[in-house]
C-alpha cells in the first residue's frame, strides 16, 4: 500500500469511485479473524483435519469476495479478459476457472459475485475498473462481510434439505448453479460448484447462527464444522 493513500484521493479511478485495499499486507503482522472466530472460541468449529465423515462442513476463510454491478455485456468482456472465464449470462449460472479457485456467479440481472483466492481481490478490482473505464458499473468489496462453507459427503444433501427451502436435488441444483435462498431464518448463497460439493456463502453476523443450525441439524450424522487455514 502506498503512503499516498493516507488521504482520500478522489482522482483515483478517474475520480468516480474510491477504492480501498483492506489488507494490511503480510509484513504488518496482523492476524485476521474469520466470521467464525466466535464459533471457534465456543468450540463449535475446529481446525480442518481428521478422517472423512459421511458429512463434512469446512470453512474457506478470507477469500476475496467482490460484487460486480452493471450490464452483462459491459462486464462480460472485462471479466473474460481479467479472469479468463466468461460472465454467466444465464440466470443462476456459476462458472469456475480452470483451477477451480476463482468463480463468477450470477446474482441478479445486473449483479455478479466474484470469489477469488485471498488477497487477489484488490488487484482484480483495479484491473476491472481500468478496463471498464467510463462505463456505468460498480464494484464492491464485501470480503469482510461473508465467508464460504463447503459441504460434502453423502448426507450433505439431507442436511441442506433441513436448512434451505430450495430444491437441492440434482434436478433443482445441478453443478454450475448458484442461488440466493432462505436458510433457516436467514439467507445464504447456495452454490453447486462440483458434483462432490455444495457451498454456502454466509453473512458474517449470521455465521455463528448458521453454524449452530448446521450442528444441530447435522447431529444425527455426527457433523463437525471445521475451518481451513488460509
Amino acid at each position, binding site marked *: 500500500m502506498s503512503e499516498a*493513500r*493516507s488521504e482520500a484521493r478522489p482522482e483515483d479511478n478517474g475520480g468516480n469511485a474510491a477504492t480501498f485495499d483492506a489488507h494490511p499486507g503480510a509484513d504488518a503482522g496482523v492476524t*485476521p479473524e474469520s466470521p467464525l472466530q466466535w464459533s471457534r472460541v465456543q468450540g463449535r468449529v475446529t481446525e480442518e483435519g481428521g478422517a472423512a465423515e459421511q458429512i463434512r462442513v469446512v470453512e474457506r476463510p478470507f477469500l476475496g469476495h467482490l460484487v460486480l454491478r452493471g450490464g452483462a455485456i459491459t462486464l462480460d468482456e472485462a471479466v473474460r479478459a481479467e479472469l479468463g472465464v466468461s460472465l454467466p449470462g444465464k440466470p443462476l449460472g456459476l462458472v469456475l476457472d480452470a483451477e477451480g479457485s476463482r468463480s463468477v456467479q450470477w446474482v441478479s440481472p445486473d449483479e455478479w459475485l466474484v470469489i477469488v483466492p485471498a488477497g487477489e481481490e484488490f488487484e482484480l478490482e483495479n484491473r476491472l475498473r481500468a478496463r471498464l473505464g467510463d462505463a456505468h458499473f*460498480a464494484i*464492491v468489496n464485501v470480503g469482510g462481510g461473508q465467508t464460504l462453507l463447503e459441504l460434502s459427503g453423502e448426507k450433505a444433501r439431507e442436511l441442506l434439505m433441513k436448512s434451505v427451502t430450495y430444491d437441492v436435488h440434482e434436478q433443482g441444483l445441478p453443478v454450475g448453479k448458484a442461488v440466493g435462498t432462505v436458510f*433457516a431464518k436467514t439467507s445464504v448463497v447456495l452454490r453447486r460448484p462440483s458434483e462432490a460439493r455444495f457451498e454456502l456463502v454466509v453473512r458474517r453476523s449470521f455465521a455463528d447462527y448458521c453454524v449452530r443450525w448446521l450442528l444441530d441439524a447435522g447431529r444425527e450424522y455426527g457433523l463437525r464444522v471445521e475451518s481451513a487455514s488460509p
Partner: protein
Amino acid sequence: MTQSNRLNQGGRIDRSRRLSFTFNGQQYMGFAGDTLASALLANGVDIVNRSFKYSRPRGITAAGPEEPNAIVQLGASEAAQVPNVRATQQALYDGLVARGTNGWPNVQRDVMSWVGKLGGGFMPPGFYYKTFMAPASMWMTYEKFIRKGAGLGRAPTEADPDIYDHFNQHCDVLVIGAGPAGLAAALSAARAGARVILCDEQEEMGGSLLDSREAIDGAPASAWAEQVVSELAGLANVTLLPRTTANGYHDHNFVTLHERRTEHLADTAAGAGREGEVRARLHRVRAGRVVLASGSHERPLVYANNDVPGNLVAGAISVYIRRYGVVPGQRLVLSTNNDHAYRAALDWQEAGREVVAVVDSRAKPDGDLVKQARDAGIRVITGSAVMEATGSQRVSGAKVVAIDTERFVVTGKVETLECDTIASSGGYSPVVHLASHTGKRPQWRDDLLGFVPGEFKGMHVAGGAHGVYALGEALADGAGVGAEAARAAGFKEAAAIAVPDVAVRHESPISALYQVPHEKPPLRAPKQFVDLQNDVTAAAVELATREGFESIEHVKRYTALGFGTDQGKLGNINGMAIAARCLNRSIPEVGTTVFRPNYTPVSFGAIVGRHCRELFDPERYTALHQWHVENGAEFEDVGQWKRPWYFPQKRRAGGQERLETMHEAVARECLAVRRGVGILDASTLGKIDIQGPDAREFLGRVYTNKWAKLAPGRVRYGLMCKDDGMLMDDGTTSCLAENHFLMTTTTGGAAGVLEWLELWHQTEWPELQVYFNSVTDHWATMTVTGPDARKLMSEVTDIDLDREQFKFMDWKEGKVAGVPARVFRISFTGELAFEINVQANYAMHVWKALFAHGEKYDLTPYGTETMHVLRAEKGLIIAGQDTDGSVTPEDLGMHWAVGYDKPFSWIGQRALTRPDTAREDRKQLVGLKPKDPKVVLEEGAQIVLDPEQKIPMTMMGHVTSSYYSPVLESGFALAVLKGGRNRMGETVYLPMSDGSVHQAEVVSTVFIDPKGERQNV
C-alpha cells in the same frame, strides 16, 4: 390379564414380540404391530373414556383417524405427556402408559356421569347461552366450573425433552395414501421416471389391501401391496414415507406431511435408543402434481344409545380381525344400508364368533356379499335397522325394527336381539378434507351418497377418495391417474401400469340412511349421537333448526358438531343429513362445511421444528463480540443483534468485591467520554455502498436535505422520510468520491433502508445510474470519542489529525494500528470523535491495539446505554425511540436539515404542507428538565398542563428519552409536546402511576455544549 379377544392366528401382528403397557393404571400385554386400540380390544377393555358433556362411558368405535372416543393421555413421565392421542393411531410400544382423558376417579366409575345422567336433560345445545347470567358478578365463578369440565387431556408442565425438524421436499408427483389406488398411482408415476413421494398415515403401507378379503392375481391383496412397496423402495426416484400423514394442503401444491420418527417406538427418542434423533419430522413438500388417494371413511348409522361401548363402525371390525387378530366381542349384529359392510359379518363368523343377524335397510339386497352371508347361514333382516342399542357399560342387545326411510318412521314391531356388539355402516365418505383446504368446495354425488373433492388443476384424485371403491376399479383408476399426473408434471411418456387381475363383484346399490327413525320422536327418544366426541345428538341438531339456526354453519356452531379433534370425520355428513331432513332440504342445499388443516392434529413441536430454544431467532454478532463477552458486557437485543449495553466493572467497597450496577457503570462510562476517552463498537449500523453518476441526485431525492455540493472527503447527516412526510430513518452519508458514497443507517433500519432505495430506483427512477450494495457486515466500526481521542488516535494512525487538516465532518483514509482504515470525524456524543472503519476481519486487531495504547488514557469501552445518554445530552434523536412514525423533520426542530428549494420534490416534501402536518400545535421535540434534579422521568410518561384535571386528562405529549446525566448531575429528558417550541420555560406535569406528579421545565433539546464546540476541536 389375558388377551381374551385375541385370535390364535391371523393378522399382521408379531405374536413372538410381547409388549407390556399400562392403561388407566392397569397393566396389559399386546404384540408388536398392535395399535393401542387393538391391544385394548384384545384385552377386552370396553370403556376407554368418558364423554365430555354427559360423562357417558365410551369405547373404541373405529380403527383409524376418525375415532372420536378413544382419546387418551399418553406418557409415563411428566415431560413426555402427550394429550389427546387417538388410541387407534398410536402404535403400541413396550412400556407405553396411557389413560382416558375424562372420568374421575376412573372411567369405570365416574362421578360426573351422575351429573350427566341427572343433568343431561338441562343441557340442550347452547344451554350456556341461556343461563349463568344472574347475578352478573357470579359469571367468573360459574365459568371456573365450566372450564374444569371442559378440555380433554392436559398439557405437560415441563419442557419437551424431544426435538423435531423439517425437510423441504420437492417432487414431481406426491401420492397421498398407499392403498390400492395410491400404490398403483405411485408405481405408474415412478416407472415413468418422475420424482415421487408416497406417504401413508399408517404404520404399514397398503391401506385397505391389508384387511381385504379379495385376491389380486390370485394371491391375497396384501401380497400385492408388499410387492409394489418393495419395488418402489428400490427406485432412486421414489421416497416412501410410512407413518406420515398429509395434514395440510396449501396453495400452489404445497403440502405438509407429518412423519412419526420415534413416537411409535417410545415416549421419547432417547427412550427408543435414538438419542439425538427427532420425535417427528415435518416434510414441507412442494409438489408438481398431487395424487389424492386418501380413501374414504365409513359412516356409522345414528340410532339410540349408539355410543354404548360395543358399537363400532362395520369396517373397523374387519380391520381388527384381519390386521390385528382381534375380535372385539362374541355376538354381533350388523346394521347396514350397503353391501360392503357385510365383510364385517363374514370376517366375524370366520373368526369363530356368532353373527346374530345382519339388519339391512334395503328391501331386496342381492349382491355377491349378501349372497355369501346368506350362504353362510347368517340371518339377514331386510327393510330394517337397529333402532336402539341396549346396555349401559357394554351393548347387551339391539332393538331392530322395520323402517320407512322416505317418511322417516318405524313401520313394524320392535324385535330385540341379544348381542354384545353392534356394527353399523351408513355408507362411505370420501376423504375430501385435504382437497378442501385450499378453498375448493366438495361436490355432492347422489349416486355415492357422499361428497367428492372439488376439481382443481395440480391435483388428481384416485380411488375411494372420489368414490371409486371396488378393488379392481380403484387399482385401474390409480394406475391411470398416476400416469396422468406424471404426464402433467412433464413426463410425457408416462403410461399406466398393467392392472392386476381382480374378480369383479356384483353389488346391490346403497340406499340413503343416516339417522334411524325411532318409535319416539327424536327429542324424546334416548340419545342418538351424531358427533360422539362433542356429545352432539340428533335431537340437538333438530333443536338448533327449530331455534332458527338454518345455515349449516349456524347448526355446527350452536351444537359444536364437528368441532372435536376428529373434526367430524364420522359425524359431519350425518349431522348435515339430519339438518337437511329437519329443514326439508337436500344435503347439497344445506351445503358442506369447509375443512381446515390439520387433517389430524400435529404437535406444535413438529411445526416449530428446530426454530426453538437457541435457534428461535438468529443472534447476530459483531467482529468484536468475543472481546465484549470476555470483558463482562451486559448485552441489549437490538433487532437480532447482540450489542453491549454496558460494561459493569468490579468495585471494591468495604473489603467486598461486587459488580457495578447499570447506573454506576453508565455514569462512569459517560464521564470517561466527557472527560477522557471512550470507545464504542458501532459495527451494527447499517452501511450501504452507493456508486454511480446519479448517486448524488438519488440522495437528494431520498433525503430531506441537499447533497448536490457535498465534496469528496466530506460527510453529511441526513433525514429520510416516507412520502407521508414522517421520519423513517436517519444517518450520515460520506462522499467517498464524486460518484461514490457510503450511507449509514440505524441498526434496526439497515435492511429496510436498502430495500427502500431499491424500491424507488427500480420502480420510479430506473433511469438514474446508481447501484446500492450492503456493506454492513464488511466493515467493522469503532468510535473513539472524548477530549483525549486525538491523543490516542495519534499514537495508532498515520492520518494527519490536525484540526485544520481533518475537520469535523471530514473523513480520511489511512492506517490504524497498521490496518487500512477509513476514519470519519462524526460525533454522536458531542465530543471530539473518530469513527474508524476497517474490514471486519481486522477489527479485533485494531480494537486491541487501541486498548493497548489507550491504557494510559484510561480508554473506557461503553455500550448502548451510555451512547444514549451522551446523544440525548446533545439533543440528538434516535429514530424509532424519539420518533414513532408520526413525527416530521419539522416536529423535531430540524428545519435546518430540510431543503425546501431543492429542484426535485423529494420523498416526503409534499406531505409536509397538508393541513395536519402544517399545524402549529403539533407535537414537537423539546427538552425537559425535572424540577427535582434527582428525578429521572419515566420514559413514556405522559405530559399534562393541569395536574388537577379529572380523568380523562388532556395529554399534551410524552417523554421519549430520559436519563440521569452525571455531567449535569440531574435527570433530563427529551419529549414530544404539543406546541412545544412555544412553551420554553413553561412548567409541565407528569402524573405517575403511584399517584405522584413530577414537574419539569420545558427547555432546549441541547443540554450540553449548545454551540457544539466540544466536537469541533
